[in-house]
């Protein structure tokens, strides 16, 4: 396989303007075949616009996007892709089964295959027993599972998902993630747009972080996480209530965040911070319930990268 043959999505200098606003600015990246690629960014960063250009819903003002070697937006590129758009919906006046049938026919899937595949997919996401009910009676999680099944009815080579688990309950969210991993294990490519760090961390082989229309980082989640310096943290919880003034005398602590009954102290010197914290607690007769030194999380990296962009 040559270098080009191994690339599922190739994006070069993609630019999209809305009046004076540049929503996507010279964005370039490659997604290898069989990879789960996470496209991360805060709200309004340009994620959805980029995804819409690649899926052929919008046209770029400049640049080029290729899907499995086909120009984005062409019938060939659309035919081999499955799409779960952001805030998309199934037809609520049709049953789940009729929605599957409609999507299969639109993609030109033969009738008998539509039937078999719909049955298989709906069973996998626990919707088969409710297949004949109108979609308007489905819960949000059920609708999202159905939309995913609709995107897979044509057995696509590549799957685009824009915030697929946003606002879902844990069960539906887990089911969708497991489903995606299973799809990927067959060698299929996934392009996932999300702002949920944990989701990206669990699923993605590679991620790109976009902010204000510009790619600020591309790499594996682990690599991006470890590249962020000075973002170690110490997580501590005490028996009894403590307010943030307690930490004022700890000079090593750069910033702190309360997380439930725990405090997360950001520091460049985690070892010194632990020692100071223990002494400080002991001097005030405070019992430490838990104390953990944490490396930077993907969320920390994300915040660091996107904040840095805003400052500049």
């Amino acid at each position: 396989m040559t270098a080009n043959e191994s690339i599922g999505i190739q994006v070069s200098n993609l630019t999209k303007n809305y009046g004076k606003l540049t929503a996507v600015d010279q964005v370039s990246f490659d997604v290898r075949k069989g990879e789960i690629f996470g496209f991360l960014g805060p709200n309004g960063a340009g994620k959805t616009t980029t995804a819409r250009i690649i899926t052929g819903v919008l046209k770029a003002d400049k640049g080029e996007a290729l899907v499995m070697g086909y120009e984005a937006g062409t019938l060939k590129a659309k035919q081999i892709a499955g799409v779960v758009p952001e805030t998309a919906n199934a037809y609520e006046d049709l049953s789940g089964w009729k929605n599957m049938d409609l999507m299969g026919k639109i993609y030109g899937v033969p009738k008998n295959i539509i039937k078999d595949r719909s049955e298989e997919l709906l069973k996998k996401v626990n919707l088969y027993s409710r297949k004949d009910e109108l979609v308007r009676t489905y819960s949000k999680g059920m609708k999202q599972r159905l939309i995913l099944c609709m995107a897979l009815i044509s057995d696509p080579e590549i799957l685009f998902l824009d915030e697929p688990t946003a606002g879902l309950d844990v069960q539906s969210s887990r089911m969708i993630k497991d489903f995606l991993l299973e799809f990927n294990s067959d060698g299929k490519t996934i392009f996932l747009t999300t702002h949920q760090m944990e989701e990206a961390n669990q699923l993605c082989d590679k991620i790109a972080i976009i902010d204000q229309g510009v790619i600020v980082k591309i790499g594996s989640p682990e690599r991006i996480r470890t590249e962020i310096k000075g973002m170690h943290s110490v997580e501590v919880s005490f028996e009894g209530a403590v307010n943030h003034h307690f930490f004022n005398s700890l000079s090593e602590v750069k910033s702190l965040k309360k997380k439930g009954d725990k405090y997360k102290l950001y520091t460049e010197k985690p070892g010194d911070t632990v020692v100071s914290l223990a002494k400080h607690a002991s001097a005030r007769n405070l019992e430490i319930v838990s104390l953990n030194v944490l490396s930077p999380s993907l969320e920390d990296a994300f915040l660091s990268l996107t904040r840095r962009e805003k400052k500049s």
Partner: protein
Amino acid sequence: MSDTAILFQQAKRAWIIARKDIRIYYSKGPVIIFGILFPVFLFLSFAVGRNLPFESLIPGLLGMVLFFTSTSISPAVAPWETQARTLERLMSAPLKTHTIILGDILASFLYGVLVSIVPLIACVGFGIKISHPVILMLGIILAGFCFSSLGLIFSAAPTSMPSTIMMLSVMVKFPVIFISGIFIPLDQLPEWGRIISFVSPLTYFTDIARLCIKKRGYFSLGFDFLMLVAFTILFLLFAMIIHHITMPKRI
């Protein structure tokens, strides 16, 4: 895949879109109100108490029903799909914009043609003989397609509010009814009214219906059909171009 094969494939998919529209939108309240009840009550308000022979009324009724029904679905589908958030899925599917539009026009066209059969059945029920049934059917088919294309132009504005589009379309449809020889035959209109009526496609269909039912029209059949073809091409091309521009703005 050859160009012919792509054309055939897209035509087939336009029919799938049309079937989806038929299944979902034919029974929607606004479609029934603006497409069926509105023209019927408008007609009754004109006809009741005037002691006019049914034979004189039926071409106008037929024209009004076809016009209102054919323009009742095509304007509403795009804002409904926008509101229901189903449009992006269609736009990312292997469909050309023209295919989606053609599917909507087909659904609206079929609705118009099917409902128009009701006044024709009434015609038979009242013992009125249609002199040229085949020509009348051809006129209904052509005019249905023409009016559906016109309906699609109403929804060009990228709004997600079907009510806005419905109001806009009613604002256009009402004056058209009064200038198209529906209530008053063209030869009885004043000169200025006749001149205005030439710009309405409904004028030519009503004339075809009068020719086929009352054996008396204002224009020749050839001219009526020629004008309907011209209006159809104009509306269809305009609808295709304008929706190609505005569809991405809907999402």
